Structure formats: structure tokens, C-alpha cells
């Protein structure tokens, strides 16, 4: 069993007119799609713009999705095509692209400028990202050993529940429970920080 069944259920909800079904799919895959698009554009802000466009294209094409392939495979192709189209548009109109991101008046080559902008364009986003990453890492380190092992085998190694059960020598139901409890603990920590004190951001979703 894999994510295809759950994705297909959500796709069917979206195809029946429930926008929440598609929203759940976007929340699930937005990080992966941005990571994918960043193979083509190194600026995360631009990658998010392209990812947004890809999701909207996917939504428009959703009625034609028949489940012949996994949803993410289908979405992957849309995202790749959208990224390539964005690159082609940039090639057709490089001046506009440079103007959109400042300009080269200070003598920077466009490529250098883009690299520099990657690091400095969205400081708030970078700070937020680092904060979330640090919070998640710290929360996982504080988990009991069995929960930490289960969540890491699942998220980092991508093992199925059955494989994790074999590796940890425990029933599949126990694996399911451990992973759930680990997620709940990390999620609680994220909420505690972002909803309670810092007030700079909230967990995506």
C-alpha cells in the first residue's frame, strides 16, 4: 500500500467539487514541488511562484485525471513543464526578468545577481524556514528512542510500516501508533512556538 490510494481519494473529492480535497493535495506536495522546481530555478521565491502556477494548472486539468498514473507522477510532469516554460519565457525576455529582480546597474552579471538574490530576497522566509527546521529537529531529538526511530525510518528512509515493523521487531499497529505519536509531539512543539510566543509565522497548511 502507498500514497496512491489516499491521493486518489482526495482527487475524487476534488473532482466532485470539494475544493478541500485539492487543498489537501497541495498541502501535501507543495514542499516536494518547490524542491523539484528548484532544480530549474535556484530562487525559492520564484520556485514557489512556479509551483503555484503548476498547482493551478493541475487543478484545471484535474477533471481529465483518470488515475492511470499516480497523482504525484502526473503533478510532477505538470511542474516540470511549467518550470521549463518559465525558463523559456525568461530566455525570450531576459531584460524583463532582470528588471523584475532589480537590475545589473551595479555591475553584477545577471547570474551572479540571481545567486545573490537567492540568499537575500526573502529574509523573513529564510528565518522562518530555519526556525521551523530547528524546531522540528529539536523536537525529534527529544522524542523517546522508539518514536524517533520509527519517524526517522518513515520520513528519512521512506520505509513502509511493514518494513519498519520488521526492522523494529514489533507489530505494524505499534509502528503506526509510534509514528502518529511522534508526529503529534513535533506538531505540538511547532504550535507551541509559533502560536504562543514568537508570533512570526505559523505552520504551513
Amino acid at each position, binding site marked *: *500500500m*502507498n*500514497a496512491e*490510494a*489516499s491521493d486518489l*481519494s*482526495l482527487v*475524487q*473529492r476534488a*473532482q466532485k*467539487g*470539494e475544493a*478541500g*480535497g*485539492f*487543498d*489537501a493535495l*497541495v*498541502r*501535501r506536495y*507543495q*514542499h516536494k514541488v*518547490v524542491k523539484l522546481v*528548484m532544480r530549474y530555478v535556484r530562487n525559492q521565491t520564484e520556485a*514557489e511562484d512556479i*509551483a*503555484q502556477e503548476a498547482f*493551478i494548472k493541475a*487543478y*484545471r486539468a*484535474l*477533471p*481529465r485525471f483518470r488515475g492511470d498514473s499516480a497523482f504525484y507522477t502526473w503533478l510532477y510532469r505538470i511542474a516540470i513543464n511549467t518550470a521549463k516554460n518559465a525558463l523559456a519565457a525568461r530566455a525570450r525576455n531576459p531584460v524583463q526578468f532582470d528588471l523584475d529582480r532589480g537590475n545589473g546597474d551595479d555591475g553584477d552579471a545577471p547570474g551572479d545577481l540571481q545567486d545573490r538574490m537567492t540568499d537575500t530576497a526573502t529574509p*523573513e*522566509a529564510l528565518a*522562518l*524556514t530555519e526556525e*521551523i*527546521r530547528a524546531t*522540528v*529537529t529539536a523536537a525529534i531529538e527529544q522524542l523517546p528512542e522508539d518514536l524517533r526511530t520509527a519517524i*526517522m525510518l*518513515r*520520513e528519512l528512509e521512506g520505509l*513502509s*510500516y511493514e518494513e519498519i515493523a520488521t526492522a523494529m521487531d514489533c507489530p505494524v499497529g505499534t509502528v*503506526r501508533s509510534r509514528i*502518529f505519536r511522534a*508526529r*503529534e509531539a513535533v*506538531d505540538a512543539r*511547532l504550535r507551541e512556538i*509559533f502560536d504562543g510566543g514568537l*508570533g*512570526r*509565522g*505559523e*505552520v*504551513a*497548511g
Partner: protein
Amino acid sequence: MTEDERASQLSAMFDGELPPAECELLARRLSRDEALRRQWGSYALIGAAVRGEPIVARSRSGAQADVAARVRQALEQTTDVAIETAATDTGSAADAVATAGGRRPRMPRWAVPLSGFGLAAGVAAAALLWLRTDTPTAAAVANVVPAVRPAAAAEVVVPMPLPAAPPVARGASPGATDRADDSYTVPPPVQGGVALAGGATLANFLVAHSEVSMPMLRRNALSTLVAVPIEAEPAAVATSVPRSADPAPVTTDPAAGSAVERP
């Protein structure tokens, strides 16, 4: 079911470890429950953070929104056009969304091949009309017919009740035989109307072709194709159809491809 049990199900569903039947039920609830979707999104965020993937988050200041929020906002602007169910015409839903988004509506995918067929049909109709008005002259037909006539073809031309004229026979062969099976009849020309171009040869071609053509084409298209105004026909008729009051049939030698007068 308690909240913890539901959250446990959600976690299993996120990992694709929930049975399909339970998936269906939970997906229905997930699509309608914002809090559950927030939790679902949090699971995705935790996984991305563990794997070192780019983290997409929205700031409370509003300076930055995550992709999901931006997609929701963009789609809400097109709420006038709800996505249609999969059971309905799938192309129209996508086009409707595109239209609401300010884009030019595109042709449905299923209509693309149809437009190709339509274009081809238009070209074919134009070709038919062109042929209709550009039928070869009788002399040209007379020159071409012997060269293209199949060796095994035989024709019997029934004399038409036309004004007296000497029967015409080309290349009479002593070995000619009368084969009724291969005999075709050339209809009489209509005065003041149209006549068949090419006479017996085209009649043979028409009848032979009609055996493998569609009835509609046989009745309409081909008959239109070979019909030309009567004033352009005398020469052609004179070479292939006997204009005699005496109905002496003319046969064609299958081997030599020529016509002989039958007794």
C-alpha cells in the same frame, strides 16, 4: 471515534497505510475539515524538515504566504465556476476555469481531431467541386482511356435512343467474347441536362468502384463527380457510345480492351 483515533488514521493515511475503504471516508472528512487539513499539512511540513527539503511556510505578517494559501486564493477568485464532476464533460470544466481566470477558452481536447476531420472534409468538398467544373475534355478522355483500361475489363454499351449516327467501334478484336457478367449499361444522356463524361469507360469505373464504396457516395458523390454539362459531351459520346437508331450493342474485348459491335 476520538480525536486521537482520527488523527492516528490521518497519519496512516498520509503514509498510504490506511485501507482504501477507510481512506474514502477520511478523505471526505479531510476535504471538509480545515483543522484536519492543517494537521495534514503539518505532517507534510515535518517530513520536509526531516528530509532537508525547502520548507514552504507562510508568515503571520502576511508578507509571505505558502503555496497552498496562494493556490486557495487564486482558485477562490474563480469560485463562480465550480469544478465539474468527473462524470460530466471533463473538458468543459477545465475550459470554464480557464475562462474565469481571464484566459482565452481553449478548444476541448476531444474536438481537436474532429476539427482535423472537418478541415479534411472541407478540402475534399472543394476538390469535388473543382473536379465537377474541370472535367477532362472528351478528346482527352478518348486518348487516355485505352492506356488505363484494365486488360481484363469488358464492357457492353447499350445503344441509346439518339439520332441516327454510325456506330463507333475501336480496335475490334476477333477474339472478343460476350461476357454478360462484365456488362454494364451506360444511361442515356438527358437533353438539356447533364451527360456522363467518358461514357462507357467511366461507367465501368463507376460501377466497379461502387462495389467497394459506400452507398451514399455511390449515389451522390461519384455521380456528381462524373456529371458534366451536356454541351461538353458530344465528342466523348461519339467515341464510346453508338448514336444509332438501331440498338446494336457494342462490346469490348477484354483482352484488347477495345469495343466491337455485337450482332
